[in-house]
């Protein structure tokens, strides 16, 4: 719609003007607001932000897994390979989930069935989505376990989830998610609970699988170090909105939104000697607080009166192609202001 830039090739996932609301004490409050982004084939988009910024709600909205009793996708469009998902009945979504698009979570134990062997769990999805015979599904599940490098996969096929370490469970979950060769993988903090020497293995595995399958990946994380390790493009979220979007190099070389910049400065780094940390003062405004302007303005050192009055658009950053920032002071919203 009004997103000024589309990637050249048709994206695997195109989200436009998405808003998801939750009911809190009888009022519908927006958890994510007017979100637009896209993911191409063989591309990893990292969505990064702190607690409560809406990054997990974004992936649940795309999967259409927002519990109807609590929340709703209020507006917008989600297209998977051109097909509008918001128009589909639940039965249609069931055919897509775990098949054309799959999701992995932080804690694999909560999404693995504890009383079913890991091999059978992978085979089940192939039997369900691909109508594979029992023998075919078993053979394929075994290949998948080898493919995600479970050591001695054949003998571990019949093991239960609790017999695996955290890193191995995450590998099992990846095997299960990729069983039907999805076009899109949504990974929600998949390495956050893992030790760093295990995390690096899982990140390397995901990067390799994404490339070999030409898959699109949305990688949700709070860790800017992980973003730099895995992303092709990055969207930074704050208070339910994307406040900056750029390719990974531009984002780290030229963080433009004051929040992105502040986030980088508040992160202690192992690759640098002790430097002054600059924490971000204050706290995120609560979801119950409606603000007419930028939700970061209260903590922002550059805030001007206009920042409190109205929400800035996601506007191009001069001299940095494909780089967008939602800031009256730092981005160049002049042309958009005229159009509006």
């Amino acid at each position, binding site marked *: 719609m009004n997103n000024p830039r589309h990637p050249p090739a048709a994206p695997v996932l195109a989200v436009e003007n998405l808003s998801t609301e939750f009911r809190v004490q009888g009022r519908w409050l927006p958890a994510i607001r007017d979100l637009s982004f896209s993911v191409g084939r063989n591309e990893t988009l990292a969505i990064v932000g702190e607690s409560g910024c809406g990054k997990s709600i974004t992936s649940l909205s795309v999967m259409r897994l927002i519990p109807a009793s609590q929340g709703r996708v209020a507006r917008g469009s989600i297209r998977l390979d051109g097909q509008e998902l918001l128009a589909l009945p639940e039965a249609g979504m069931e055919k897509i989930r775990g098949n054309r698009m799959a999701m992995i979570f932080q804690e694999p134990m909560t999404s693995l069935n504890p009383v079913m062997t890991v091999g059978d769990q992978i085979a089940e999805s192939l039997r369900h989505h691909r109508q594979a015979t029992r023998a075919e599904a078993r053979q394929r599940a075994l290949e998948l376990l080898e493919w995600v490098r479970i050591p001695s996969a054949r003998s571990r096929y019949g093991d239960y989830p609790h017999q695996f370490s955290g890193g191995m469970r995450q590998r099992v979950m990846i095997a299960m998610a990729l069983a039907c060769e999805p076009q899109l993988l949504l990974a929600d903090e998949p390495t956050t609970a893992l030790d760093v020497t295990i995390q690096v293995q899982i990140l390397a595995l995901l990067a390799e699988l994404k490339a070999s399958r030409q898959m699109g990946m949305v990688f949700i994380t709070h860790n800017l170090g992980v973003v730099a*390790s895995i992303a092709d493009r990055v969207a930074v979220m704050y208070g339910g909105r994307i406040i900056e979007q750029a390719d990974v190099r531009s984002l780290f070389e030229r963080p433009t939104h004051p929040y992105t910049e502040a986030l980088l400065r508040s992160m202690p780094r192992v690759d640098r000697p002790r430097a002054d940390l600059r*924490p971000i003062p204050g706290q995120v405004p609560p979801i119950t607080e409606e603000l007419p302007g930028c939700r970061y303005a209260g903590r922002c050192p550059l805030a001007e009166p206009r920042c409190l009055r109205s929400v800035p658009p996601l506007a191009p950053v001069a001299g940095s192609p494909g780089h967008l920032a939602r800031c009256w002071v730092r981005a160049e919203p002049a042309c958009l202001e005229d159009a509006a």
Partner: protein
Amino acid sequence: MSRPLLEVKNLSKRFVVKRGFMGSRKAELHAVHDVSFSVAEAEAFGIVGESGCGKSTAGRSLLRLIEPSEGQVLYKGENIVDFGADRLRALRRDIQIIFQDPYASLNPRMTIGQTLAEPMLLHGLASRADVRGKVEAALLEVGLPAQAMQKYPHEFSGGQRQRIGIARALSLNPKLIVADEPVSALDVSIQAQVLLLMEDLQRKRGLSFVFISHDLGVVRHFCDNVAVMYLGRVVEKGSVDTLFEQPLHPYTQALRAASPVPDPARKITVARIEGDIASPLDPVSGCHFHPRCPKAMDVCRREYPAVRRAEGREVACHLYPRTPAAA
């Protein structure tokens, strides 16, 4: 040179764990194995390592929240392992602990004022008459308003609760604080606020810290010296800059390389370390790290390496010191 504030010598802790059907077999878990380090006055000493490396057990042994199996913990030259109940109570005024999740260590039915007043009254550092003022001062010192006194723990955010945890630890005027993953549960922007607060307090009060963390970035920022632990043992020990710029032990090297930094030029393509951390219940022979070590030699499978001094730090690895160069 003056005596260090805290000296840990050959500390070990073994747990007996039940295994097998209905706990029919007993096994010994060597959680901390022959760990030695010392902490000077006003020094921040880091202990870094991954799950199950024994860093928290080591930290808790320093206050005897866990009783050490072997070794000495010398506080101002006196071995606290021999202390009776009275001296231990007095010691716990000098050494305090902060946990990762302050919520779990705050009584939900007590106001913050009550929580902070209790230890001061118990240890006779305040009287009924002046405790209110002292609690107020403690809150202000950690950046919380005096009105926080009337509130309950659930009314605070994670960062504020950690400030309360720090205020409680400070209320007894300790000399040393054991901080066990104090900022791990916090968002980055809040984490920086709490780190700066601790730095500030360290400077003002001349506090020493034993700072336990899995995050190398936080340790490099906060600590002067650091010990890297793997499966109960210290594998390398030295100043943070030495260890994280030029790690010698292959495990420290792997840990350093795997720690994410916000620099896309270091994009991950291949993991340089394979394999899982072995279970501390099934220890391997020789060096614990050899099954994952890219440089493992025959000797590594046979015997645990002695601690040696090399290139300005201590390292327990058969690679060091290298045999003198032929030339």
